[in-house]
């Protein structure tokens, strides 16, 4: 075998072995100067980071910038990260801060940048009870319309918890508030959503 092939093979082997390493191991490697270990962390968390940034900025381009900036800031602070703590909430807090800074530069009025999926798309999702899927398929458009009528803070907490499915701790980290605040804010937001939906007129199809 040629030397370059051996080198490529070793590189692929190292890359493959990092795929299954837990976060703490990758972070520890990063702290010791292994930038490729951080590259694996980026690949692992870029989807959730980008989507959180997208919810906050409302723009794909700004979300990309904010997520990139968030990862760079995380890298520069990685030396002080305590390995026994979960990485994702810490990272998402940094990304969310970068996204809010990005949105502040453009002075864009915050608004949910998502559209409702088609009913067919919702039904093909295997998760949830049949009743929930039926409700979701039937009411996707109305729920999204109602969601967008909530105030921005309520839209954010619902989107982060149920669409991106962040944990309570992660949602608190992104919003910069206590976990108890997330709970109470979410409860009130769902209540307001139910009220809006209940008050919305709906035509009943004729037989």
């Amino acid at each position, binding site marked *: 075998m040629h030397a370059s092939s051996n080198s490529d093979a070793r590189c692929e082997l190292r890359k493959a072995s990092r795929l299954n390493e837990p976060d703490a191991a990758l972070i520890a490697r990063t702290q010791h100067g292994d930038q490729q270990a951080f590259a694996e962390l980026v690949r692992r968390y870029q989807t959730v980071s980008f989507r959180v940034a997208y919810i906050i900025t409302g723009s794909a381009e700004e979300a990309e910038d904010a997520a990139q900036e968030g990862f760079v800031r995380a890298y*520069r602070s990685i030396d002080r990260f305590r390995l026994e703590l979960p990485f994702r909430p810490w990272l998402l807090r940094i990304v969310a801060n970068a996204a809010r800074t990005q949105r502040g530069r453009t002075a864009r009025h915050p608004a949910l940048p998502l559209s409702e999926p088609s009913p067919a798309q919702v039904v093909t999702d295997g998760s949830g009870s049949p009743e929930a899927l039926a409700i979701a398929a039937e009411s996707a458009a109305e729920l999204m319309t109602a969601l967008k009528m909530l105030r921005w803070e309520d839209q954010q907490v619902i989107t982060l918890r149920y669409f991106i499915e962040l944990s309570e701790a992660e949602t608190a980290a992104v919003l910069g508030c206590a976990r108890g605040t997330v709970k109470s804010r979410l409860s009130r937001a769902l209540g307001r959503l139910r009220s809006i939906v209940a008050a919305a007129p709906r035509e009943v199809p004729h037989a």
Partner: protein
Amino acid sequence: MRDHGGRPLDLQGAALEDALRAIGHRVEYPPVPDLWPAIEHQLQVEPLADRPRLRPRELSWPAFSRVMVTAVLIVLVMVGALVLIPGLRQAVAERFGLTGVTLQFWEEAPNVPVSPVGGALGLGQPVSLAEAVDAADFPLQAPSSLELGSPMEILVTYGQSNRMVSLVYPASDRLPASRYSGVGALLTQFRGTTERGLIDKGMLVDSAVTTTTVNGELAFWIDGAAHYFMYIDPAGDVQAVDYRLAGKVLLWEADGITYRLESELTREAALAIAESLQPVAVEGTD
């Protein structure tokens, strides 16, 4: 909301949450870009661990020029040039991306008495934690680091355009007493504005100022000879509400809130405390 039979749909309890999750699984997001190449490039272009925050979209200078300009500004600051060039002082803080704080450099210290330990620190009204949470016009944070323990005093100052909350921690085995105030640590936080500084920090010309990061956010580490902690009103006038002498200060901003940690700890210990900040939750508050 009703189903095809005209019956109202049940959105109580978990049904609504399940419906939201089902919708959320199928909502379309923009395609996720491959972020690593751009990140890797940025880390190679700016390999220094501590550097002022530079926003490539806002500056058209190459990275080397930006670093040189920053270095020149620091040199000017160290020789007291900022005292002589009024417009430049605010430009320094803004250049480093901190609002609400103006750094002023003085050639010699005025004759200022040291605040007594346990006495009035000139930081406002003593309140309970719950009252401080209510009074703050921002989410109040507190260190979760074990070194500090619980604050022995909490104070609130009502400014013209903001509220300032100070947490005072006692000296202990793990927290050496300040040479000036006698307390172990003082954490002050307030909403920074883009108007002319809420707090001015006066420093002697041989004070050292370095930049670092707290949770990825730009921060200042101020060390060396004693400097001053002063209030300034939004009109830019210095208000001599109180004077304090401070030793080592970590100053940073996050989400529009400026934080100031004063102690005799090392920079690394101060950074660890700063990064241990957690929102304060009190029953019944939002």
